[in-house]
């Protein structure tokens, strides 16, 4: 079984600690469990957001392959959207 690492955190702002203590009470768990949950959530959000940025870059690359010299003026995204807005 992989050992679970421990983390010693210094200089925690008291306001942040108060928020975590309140959340731990509300969720009926220890402060340690609350902090671990917060860290897991943060790591997951980071992982997902990195994935989204990568997907956006890949998408831009695919469109660049279709229009290597840039969009024709009539096909610029904002031109299409303005035309759509003006014809509703």
């Amino acid at each position, binding site marked *: 079984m992989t050992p679970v690492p421990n983390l010693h955190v210094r200089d925690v702002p008291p306001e942040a600690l108060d928020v975590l203590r309140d959340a731990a009470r509300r969720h009926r768990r220890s402060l340690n469990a609350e902090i671990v949950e917060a860290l897991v959530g943060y790591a997951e*959000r*980071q992982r997902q*957001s*990195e994935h*989204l*940025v990568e*997907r*956006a*870059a890949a*998408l*831009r690359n*695919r*469109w*660049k392959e*279709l229009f290597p010299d*840039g*969009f024709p003026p009539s*096909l*610029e*995204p*904002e031109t*299409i*959207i*303005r*035309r*759509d*807005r*003006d014809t*509703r």
Partner: protein
Amino acid sequence: MTRAEVVLDASAVVRGLSREGRASEVVDGVLAGATAAHAPDLVIAEIASALSLAVRTEARSLAAAQEALELVAASPIVVHACGPLAPAALEVSATSQLSAYDAFYAVLARALDVPLVTADRKLAAAVPEAVLIS
């Protein structure tokens, strides 16, 4: 530290997902969670409409268009229902050159007291303190 906060319109989102530039920097900042973004729910319909027009008229790949929509749906953009914004949007539209559709963006930016970020010159020109990106 306070995160930057903006209202994004459909042109900024589609531009940012299509080409490198200022719009893509803003969109990447939103996707990475560095910038908090808001939009009226109208934005989804406008993005879908622009993507469908692009696919229909220029044979742009439907798969790429679907992927862009999925990315928008998965993004942390906070989407606000148009209903509660409608009375103010109607008032703005009736007393300005903005269409009611455009007014939803202006009204949301004003309600949240954050800048409207758009790639649409006409919208940027009509909304005070809007930020035009390309």
